[in-house]
C-alpha cells in the first residue's frame, strides 16, 4: 500500500496551501507535520532534508520534494491534472503562474510592516483589473466548464483557491464577473473540493498574528 504524502510546514496557509488544495482536489489523502519550534526546523536542515534550506517539504514516492512549483507540477502531472499535451500544459502553466503570483501577494500582506489594509486594497484592485478579467474572458471565449481542454485541471483548482482568497479580503470582488461566479459555484461543488471546503478539513485559516509570529520566530526573519 502506498504511503500517504507527508507535508512539512507551519500550521497555516503560506506556500503550502496550494499543495493542500491540489492533493485534496485530486482525492489524495495526506499527512502533515507542523513546524512549531525552531528546533524542528533546524533538525530538518541538519538532516539534509531541505534542498535549499526551505519549506514547503513534501515527502512522497521516495522523494523529498521542495520548491512549491516543483511540488505542484509533480502532483498535477501524477494525478492527470496537467492537460493532455504540451500546449494544454503551457496554458495551464500560464494560468497557474498568474494565480500563484496573486495568492503570494495576498500571503505576504500579513508580513508587511506597513498599512495592511491599504496593501489588501491594492491586491484586490490588481485581482479585479489584471487577473479576473483574463479568466472571465477565457471562460467566455470557449464557453466550457473548465479553463483548459474541457477537462478539470490544476488551473481550475488554483483559480478557485485564488477567488476565495480575494473574497476574504473583499466579499464583492466577483461582482462584475458573472462567469467566474458560475465557475466558483461549479468547482466548489465537485465532491473532493466540497469536502475540502467543509469545516474540519485540512484547509488552513487566513494568517493571524500568531501565525506570523511563529513563522518569524522559526525562520528568524
Amino acid at each position, binding site marked *: 500500500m502506498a504511503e500517504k504524502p507527508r507535508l512539512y510546514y507551519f500550521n497555516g496557509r503560506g506556500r503550502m496551501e496550494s499543495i493542500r488544495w491540489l492533493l485534496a482536489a485530486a482525492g489524495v489523502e495526506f499527512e502533515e507535520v507542523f513546524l512549531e519550534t525552531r528546533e524542528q526546523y533546524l533538525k530538518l536542515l541538519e538532516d539534509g532534508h531541505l*534542498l*535549499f*534550506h526551505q519549506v514547503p517539504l513534501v515527502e512522497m*514516492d521516495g*522523494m523529498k*520534494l*521542495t*520548491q*512549491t*512549483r*516543483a*511540488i505542484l*507540477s*509533480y502532483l498535477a*502531472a*501524477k494525478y492527470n491534472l496537467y492537460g493532455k499535451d*504540451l*500546449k494544454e*500544459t*503551457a*496554458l495551464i*502553466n*500560464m494560468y497557474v*503562474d*498568474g494565480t500563484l503570483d496573486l495568492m503570494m501577494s495576498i500571503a505576504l500582506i500579513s508580513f508587511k510592516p506597513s498599512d495592511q489594509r491599504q496593501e489588501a486594497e491594492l491586491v484586490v484592485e490588481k485581482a479585479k483589473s*489584471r*487577473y479576473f478579467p*483574463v479568466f472571465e474572458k477565457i471562460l467566455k471565449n470557449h464557453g466550457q466548464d473548465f479553463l483548459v481542454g474541457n477537462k478539470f485541471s490544476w488551473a481550475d483548482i488554483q483559480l478557485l483557491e485564488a477567488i476565495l482568497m480575494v473574497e476574504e479580503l473583499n466579499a464583492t470582488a466577483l461582482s462584475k464577473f458573472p462567469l467566474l461566479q458560475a465557475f466558483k459555484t461549479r468547482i466548489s461543488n465537485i465532491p473532493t473540493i466540497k469536502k475540502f471546503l467543509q469545516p474540519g478539513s485540512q484547509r488552513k485559516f487566513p494568517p493571524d498574528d500568531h501565525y506570523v509570529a511563529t513563522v518569524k520566530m522559526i525562520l528568524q*526573519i
Partner: protein
Amino acid sequence: MSGKPILHYFNGRGRMESVRWLLAAAGVEFEEKILKSAEDFENLVKGGNLMYQQVPMVEIDGLNLVQTRAILKYIAAKYNLYGKDLKEKALIDMYVEGMRDLNEMIMYYPLCYPGEEEKNLNFILERATERFFPVYEKALKSHGKNYLVGNQMSWADIQLFEAILMVEELKSDILSAFPKLQEFKARMSKLPSIQKFLQPGSQRKAKMDGKNLAEAKKIFKFDDSVFLKHMS
C-alpha cells in the same frame, strides 16, 4: 520568415535571458522584437497578446506564451531537456527553482538602495556559496556524471551554467571552493551550441549597467521602490 520563436522584451537580460539561453543551447534559432520605448510596450499591451500585460512574451507554435516559467517549461519539454520521467522532471524543477531565486537576486541588484550595494552584493555571494552552489556541487560529486540529472543534458544544466557565469561577473573566483562546478563549467562551455552563444555578436545580452537600467525604467515606467522589497 518564421516558424522561429519570436521573443518580445527590451534589450537587456532581465527575465528573458534564461529563455535565450535555453533556446540557444537547444540549437533553436529565434527572433527578437526589442521594445525600445514606452510606446512600443504600450502598443504591445494594446495588441492584446500579453495575458497579464507583462513581458516576457514568446510567440511559438501558434501560442503567445507569457510567464517565464511557462515559457521555459514549454521549450524544455519540446526540445527534450526535461528529463525522461516525472521524477527526473521533479528534480530538474527543484534545481531550476533554486537557480531562479539566485537569478532574481542578481536581477534586482542594480535596483538596490543607494549605499546598500555592498550589503546586497555580499548577501548574493553568501547565498550563492552557502545555499545554492553546494547543492549542485554535491549532486555532481555524488553521481559523478557530466550532467545534473539523468546523465543527459537538461534545462537544469543550462540554467546552472548561466547562473555560474552571472555570479562570476560579480566575483570572478566564486567557484574556487567548488571543483566539480569548475569542471562542469568547462564542459558546458565546450558544447557547440553554447560556444556559439558565448561568442560576441550572439543574441546573449550584456550585464545590466546604468544606461540599460534607465532604458528599462523608461519603457516599463517603474521606479526602484517597486522592486526593493524583493531584496532581503
